[in-house]
C-alpha cells in the first residue's frame, strides 16, 4: 500500500507542490529530446534511402566534432574550420559510397549492417591517429553559440533556460524544416524517396543510386556534425560521446525507422519521459534509471504499435 502510494500518487503530489521544478524538468527533457532526435535523424536518413541501419552514425558524430575542433587547434579560424569539416564529411560520404556500398550492392542488408561496424572501428582508429585520444573542448563561443542562461520567474520560483539549449532547439527546427522541404519538393528529394521505395524502378527511370547514396550519407554527415557541435558544447568532445548512438535506438523504435517526424517526436517523448522518470521516480528505484528507462518506454510503445508511432504499416497483398 505504501509502495503503491509512492509510485502512483506521491510523484504527482510533488509535481503539484513545486510546478516550477516540473517546468524545469520538462524543459530539460525537451532539450535532451532534441539532441536524441538529431541522432535518430541521422539514422533515419540512411535507413530510408538504403535500408541500412548505420551503426557508424554515433562515431560519425564524434569524428565530425573532432575534425572541427582539431582543425581549429591548427590555427584555422572557426568558420573556415566549419566549412572544411563539411568538406571532410562530403569526402567521407563519397568514400563510403565508392569503397563500401558500391562493392556490396545487392548484398543482404545484414552484410551492409556489418560493414557499418567495420566503418565504426575504422573511424575510431583513424580519429585517434589523427586527433589523439584526449577529450577536447568544443569551440562553442568561437562559433558564436550563446552561453549563460535566462532565469524566468514562474510559479513562485525560477526556471532556468540555458541559452545554448534554446539555440540547439532553433537550429534543429530549422534543419528539420530544411530536410522536410528537401525531401518533399526537390528532384533529388523525390529521387531519394523513389530509391527508398524500389531500387529497380528507380534505376529504370534513370536515377543514379550512387549519387543518391552520396547525398544521403553527406546529409547524415551534416546531421552528425550539428549533433557533435551541440552535444559537445554541453559536455566535451571525446570518443565516449559515441555511446549516445545507443540512445537513438529507443527513439527509432518509438518513432519508426523511416519517419523523420517520428524521429523528432520520438526523441522528445524519450527525452521528457527520461527526465521525468529520473527526477520523480528515480529516488524510489535508485540511481541509474536513465540508462534503461528509455528502452522500457520504447518497449511499452512496441506492444501497441509494432511499426512505431509514424512508421509505415506493412500491408502485403496476398
Amino acid at each position, binding site marked *: 500500500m505504501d509502495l503503491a502510494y509512492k509510485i502512483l500518487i506521491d510523484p504527482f503530489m510533488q509535481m503539484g507542490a513545486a510546478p516550477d521544478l516540473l517546468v524545469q524538468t520538462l524543459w530539460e527533457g525537451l532539450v535532451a529530446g532534441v539532441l536524441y532526435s538529431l541522432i535518430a535523424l541521422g539514422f533515419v536518413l540512411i535507413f530510408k534511402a538504403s535500408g541500412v541501419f548505420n551503426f557508424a552514425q554515433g562515431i560519425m558524430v564524434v569524428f565530425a566534432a573532432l575534425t572541427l575542433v582539431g582543425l581549429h587547434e591548427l590555427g584555422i579560424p572557426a568558420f573556415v574550420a566549419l566549412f572544411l569539416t563539411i568538406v571532410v564529411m562530403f569526402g567521407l560520404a563519397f568514400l563510403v559510397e565508392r569503397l563500401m556500398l558500391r562493392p556490396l550492392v545487392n548484398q543482404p542488408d545484414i552484410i551492409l549492417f556489418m560493414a557499418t561496424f567495420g566503418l565504426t572501428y575504422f573511424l575510431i582508429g583513424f580519429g585517434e591517429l589523427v586527433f589523439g585520444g584526449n577529450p577536447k573542448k568544443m569551440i562553442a563561443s568561437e562559433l558564436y553559440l550563446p552561453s549563460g542562461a535566462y532565469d524566468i520567474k514562474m510559479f513562485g520560483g525560477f526556471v532556468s533556460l540555458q541559452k545554448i539549449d534554446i539555440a540547439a532547439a532553433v537550429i534543429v527546427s530549422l534543419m528539420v524544416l530544411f530536410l522536410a*522541404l528537401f525531401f518533399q519538393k*526537390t528532384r533529388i528529394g523525390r*529521387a531519394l524517396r523513389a530509391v527508398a521505395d*524500389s531500387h529497380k*524502378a*528507380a534505376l529504370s*527511370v*534513370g536515377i*543514379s543510386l550512387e549519387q543518391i547514396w552520396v547525398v544521403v550519407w553527406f546529409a547524415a554527415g551534416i546531421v552528425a556534425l550539428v549533433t557533435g557541435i551541440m552535444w559537445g558544447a554541453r559536455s566535451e568532445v571525446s570518443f565516449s560521446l559515441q555511446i549516445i548512438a545507443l540512445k537513438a535506438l529507443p527513439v527509432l523504435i518509438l518513432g519508426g525507422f523511416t519517419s523523420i517526424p517520428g524521429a523528432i517526436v520520438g526523441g522528445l517523448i524519450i527525452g521528457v519521459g527520461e527526465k521525468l522518470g529520473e527526477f520523480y521516480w528515480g529516488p524510489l528505484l535508485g540511481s541509474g534509471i536513465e540508462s534503461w528507462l528509455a528502452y522500457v518506454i520504447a518497449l511499452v510503445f512496441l506492444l501497441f504499435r509494432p511499426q512505431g508511432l509514424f512508421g509505415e504499416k506493412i500491408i502485403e497483398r496476398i
Partner: protein
Amino acid sequence: MRVPGGADIATGGVLLAVENVSLAFGGVKAVTDVSFDIRKGEIRAIIGPNGAGKTSMLNIINGFYQPQHGRITFKGETRSKMRPHDAAKGGIARTFQNVALFRGMTSLDNIMAGRTLRMNKNLFWQLLRFGPAMNEEVEHRRRVEEIIDFLKIQEIRRTPVGRLPYGLQKRVELGRALAMEPELLLLDEPMAGMNLEEKEDMSRFILDVNDHFGTTVVLIEHDMGVVMDLSDRVVVLDHGVKIADGTPDEVKRTQAVIDAYLGVAH
C-alpha cells in the same frame, strides 16, 4: 493483323540490335546466342513459354543484366557494358512484370519521377524553389498532366499508388515510363492479370503511343490475341533460344513455335 505504319519501318532503320547474346546464372542458361533487331517505330513482341528468357532479354536491353557474350548496338553505338542509368539516359524506358512503383508516393509523384533525367537545374535553385527551377518544375508538371490526361487517370492523381487496383497501377507505371519521353519503350507483360476491358484500354494506349509519338515498343505478352493484333514483328524464345522471328502470321505457322506451345509427341 495490324497494318505496319510509318515510313521508318519501310526504310528499316534499326534502333537496337542484339547480336549473339548469351547470359547464364551459374549453370542456368537464361539466354543462349540470341540475335534480333528492333526497327525504328515498330511494335516488336517477344513471346515464348514460361521460363523462355523473355524478361532476362528485357533486363539485358536496359542494363540490369550484363550478358557474358554478344553485343548490343543501340542507336548505332555498340556498348559492351551498359548500366541502367545509361540506358535510361539513352532513351530506354520500361515497365515491370510485377509492377514496380514507388508505393509511398502519389500517382502524380510517380510520374514526375519519370522526369528525373529531364530536370537539370541545379540543387541550389531547387532548394529555393525559385527562378529557373520553379519554371522548370512548372513546365515538367504540364507535361506530366498531359500524360495523365492521355491515360485517363485524372481522378487518381493524388492517390498513393499502393492503394490503387492492379490495373490502374499498371497504367501509372506506363505513365512513368512515358514521362521519360523514351525512344524505346520496354513493356513486360503490360496486360497480365487484366480483364478484357482493361486489356482493350491498354492495347489502345500502346497503339496510340506508337502512332502519335513514334515510340518504338518492345512487348512481352502471353495473350496471343493481343500479340497478333498489336505487333509488327515477333521474336519467339524457348528455353533461352530463339526459335522463330518474323511477322505474326509467319511465326504462327512455324512448326517449332507450335511445338513449343503445344508440346511434341516423343
